[in-house]
């Protein structure tokens, strides 16, 4: 049932709207709306009951194990939400003077400082509103740096073939061409291929480490040297920072810029797909180009810097100071963890991933890179299962839903056939991991005994398998009254 189908003419909530004011006589008729928009007419109870029951049609971290690789679906502590929703924080207008937001700005300033420390960067801007915007800022800074040095012939960004799709898409948004670098048999960037690819046209390299294949690039220092020697700069995609938090720092690996997905490593909520936050860090060379605003501390208080402070900045990415409420949640999370807690994040994320991988291999599954340690996530390939039974990675993913587990990421990275990218995170217990192993073992047994059961999954979710081809072919994007 859609909310529109619950709608009854004339049903209104008088308490939630203000008392009526007369029609505005000072606005000429030609500016006014002729017919009201088609919005629901429903009571508060109708609305509350409808959206509460919709929420119950979701899997979520709070209700299910959610091992979606590359997304870091860890528990979101409730205190982070409660404290970001303190009434004074919610009421403050973004245009209010800085001196009316010293408490808020103190949190942001300290967040910047802590992010500098854990990434090993010289400076951080909290402005980007998502990881993809952080990436955009990072590559735009690389471009601005080369431009400022009159080095305008650099036209290409190098991206490993296993990279997140946002990397090549971002390079194009910054006006660059993209050259893909292949992966070698161990899951590392193919170093000889990288050496052949770099040159005077190289603006930079975008890299995730540990990579999207769930392994740490052994040769990161050599990779950095190859790119730097060619005059290019190094961009760190912080999607997998959770794996190495407080253990290894991107700045020490030689990276010049980085974005951090606060909704991954620093446990701000994913919210059904946002809002995220993608603060961007810069080494000394790129710091003058960071996006605005940046919080600076002074003796008389904290202040948001603008164009007058940072004339070389790539500019602004958001109407205000970024996703402030998300930043506050990350700040609370970091204060709850402290330095030691951050180290435990990487420790237990890595322990859980390696344990889960070992148990799944024991259960008969194939690791994509059996010769490697897992980082915080790892890849299984179900090619053998598919060859034997016709059951695909997508089928297995759907069948896991029936067993009460959210599916891992499927078919990414694209270069491993029939892959499951599994990220358990540090907040899951051994008991949950063991139950997940048992569920996957059951699905594999079902695939062999009765493959149609798996191929037609899911069976117990609110809807059965959905026709995505029909959705794209017969576009139905809005409800229309009949």
């Amino acid at each position: 049932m859609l909310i529109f189908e619950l709608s009854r003419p004339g049903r209104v909530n008088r308490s939630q709207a203000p008392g009526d004011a007369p029609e505005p006589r000072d606005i000429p008729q030609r500016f006014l709306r002729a017919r009201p928009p088609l919005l629901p007419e429903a009571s508060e109870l109708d609305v509350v009951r409808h959206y509460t029951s919709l929420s119950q049609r979701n899997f979520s971290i709070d209700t299910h194990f959610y091992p979606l690789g590359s997304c870091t679906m860890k528990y979101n502590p409730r205190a982070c939400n409660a404290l970001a929703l303190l009434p004074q924080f919610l009421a403050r207008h973004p245009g209010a003077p800085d001196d009316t937001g010293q408490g808020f700005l103190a949190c942001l300033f300290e967040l910047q400082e802590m992010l500098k420390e854990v990434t090993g960067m010289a400076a951080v801007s909290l402005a980007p509103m998502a990881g993809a915007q952080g990436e955009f800022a990072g590559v735009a800074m690389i471009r601005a740096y080369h431009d400022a040095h009159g080095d305008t012939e650099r036209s290409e960004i190098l991206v490993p073939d296993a990279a997140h799709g946002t990397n090549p898409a971002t390079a194009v948004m910054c006006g660059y061409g993209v050259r893909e670098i292949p992966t070698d048999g161990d899951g590392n960037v193919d170093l000889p291929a990288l050496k052949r690819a770099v040159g005077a046209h190289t603006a930079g390299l975008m890299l995730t480490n540990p990579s999207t294949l769930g392994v740490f690039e052994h040769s990161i220092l050599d990779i950095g040297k190859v790119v730097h020697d060619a005059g290019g700069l190094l961009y760190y995609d912080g999607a997998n920072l959770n794996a190495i938090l407080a253990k290894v720092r991107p700045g020490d690996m030689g990276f010049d810029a980085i974005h951090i997905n606060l909704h991954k490593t620093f446990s701000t909520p994913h919210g059904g797909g946002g809002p995220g936050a993608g603060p961007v860090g810069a080494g000394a060379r790129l710091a003058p180009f960071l996006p605005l605003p940046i919080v600076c501390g002074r003796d008389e208080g904290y202040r948001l810097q603008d164009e007058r402070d940072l004339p070389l900045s790539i500019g602004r990415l958001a109407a205000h100071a970024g996703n402030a409420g998300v930043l506050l949640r990350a700040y609370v999370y970091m204060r709850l963890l402290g330095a030691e807690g951050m180290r435990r994040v990487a420790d237990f994320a890595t322990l859980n991933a390696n344990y889960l991988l070992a148990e799944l291999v024991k259960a008969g599954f194939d690791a994509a890179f059996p010769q490697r340690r897992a980082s915080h996530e790892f890849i299984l390939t179900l090619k053998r299962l598919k060859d034997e039974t016709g059951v695909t990675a997508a089928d297995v993913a759907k069948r896991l839903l029936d067993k009460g587990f959210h599916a891992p990421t499927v078919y990414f990275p694209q270069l491993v056939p029939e892959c499951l990218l599994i990220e358990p995170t540090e907040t899951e217990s051994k008991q949950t991991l063991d139950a997940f192993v048992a569920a996957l073992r059951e699905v594999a047994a079902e695939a062999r005994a009765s493959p149609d059961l798996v191929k037609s999954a899911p069976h117990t979710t609110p809807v059965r398998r959905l026709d995505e081809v029909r959705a794209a072919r017969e576009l139905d994007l809005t409800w229309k009254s009949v």
Partner: protein
Amino acid sequence: MLQALGVGSIEALFDEIPAALRGVRLNDVPPALTEMEVSRLMRERAEADGTYLNFIGAGAYEHHVPAAIWQIATRGEFYSSYTPYQAEASQGTLQVLYEYQSMMASLLALDVTNASLYDGASALAEAVLMAVRAQRSAKRVLLPRSVHPVWRKVARTITRNHGIELTEVGYDADAGHTSLPALENFKGEEIAAVVVPQPNFFGVLEPADELVDWAHAHGALAIAAVNPTALAILKPPGSWGTTGADIAIGDGQPLGVPLASGGPYFGFMACRKALVRQMPGRIVGATRDSEGRRGYTLTLQAREQHIRRSKATSNICTNQGLVVTAATIYLALLGADGLARVARASHANAMTLLAALTRVDGVERAFSGSQFHEFVLRLKTPVTPVLEALKARGIIGGFDLGHDFPELGDALLVCATETKTDADIMRYAESMESIIARRYRPAPCAVRPSS
């Protein structure tokens, strides 16, 4: 667990990382606090920020947020789920987004909308990129100076490396809306799109019908930049001019999202059906399951970065799902009648405040054009000390336009919404009067009349 792995310590699991990189010490990250200690710290900081009577709008608007909205939106099932890649396990989020798309399409009177972008400013930038993609050869977009100055900056940052020329168009100094004669300077040039704000940054209503028709007569697309509350009573973009605007964007913050120092908000984007494949961001479609039941899924993903990589329409990945969930509940709770009440009450309060403030000697209305819930005042004394004095009385008096619009002199952008009572308005007007009276005395007559 370590036994199962055959290692002696967790540290051994990091042995593939070069030793030179390990052994980080975090000296600047303080030790852990308990939940009680962090709660106390945050409460002290929140209280230090205090509460003010706010009269700034300038792109973020204080409206009443009904209690039900965030109680439902922050349920764990919405709060801690992710992008609905596994549609069968995400029907809640997907249906909310489908309902949102339906409500916004109707509010904007356009065919389709996406499931949101980051905020209004970045939505404007994406709309510019989208219009230029759709137009193929034309690279110039006319961007009135009456559009939010930061939105214009963001559009520049994001579109800078695409050879796009963002050309500003001036406003009529009396009326405060985009100058139609100024547009005529671009006659005969190849224009990809014209941006039409409604209401504009000054709160003034633009001649949207004429601007859209001008754009279409010159082969350009029309991009509407609108306030969603205002559309409860103002003509929607799809009805502007002879054939309507082609793309509409804006910031969804007024729809149940608290001010919260600037975010998270969300950007919305709608367009004609013919342009849907150029639209960035997630889109949800209705379909059927294997038993013929209605269900919802992400669709048209062939536009997106995780499929198309370097050929995607944008690098955008997530949207602002949770904030959109709140906005959907807001629209469902208020309905067309409630939203129109919010719009009319905001307009009425703004007009009452305008009348009260312009009765003060030394305060004038800057523009003659019709206003929605925001207006520009010209003061006969510098703005900064007036705002400081108001702040000392607990009032945030408005947005100082001196930095972005120096040509307006001592000008202040002021907003009132339905949240302001007659007593609030009176308090502001009386404070303004006493502050101005102290600062501004009319110049003495050059020649003293002889008695």
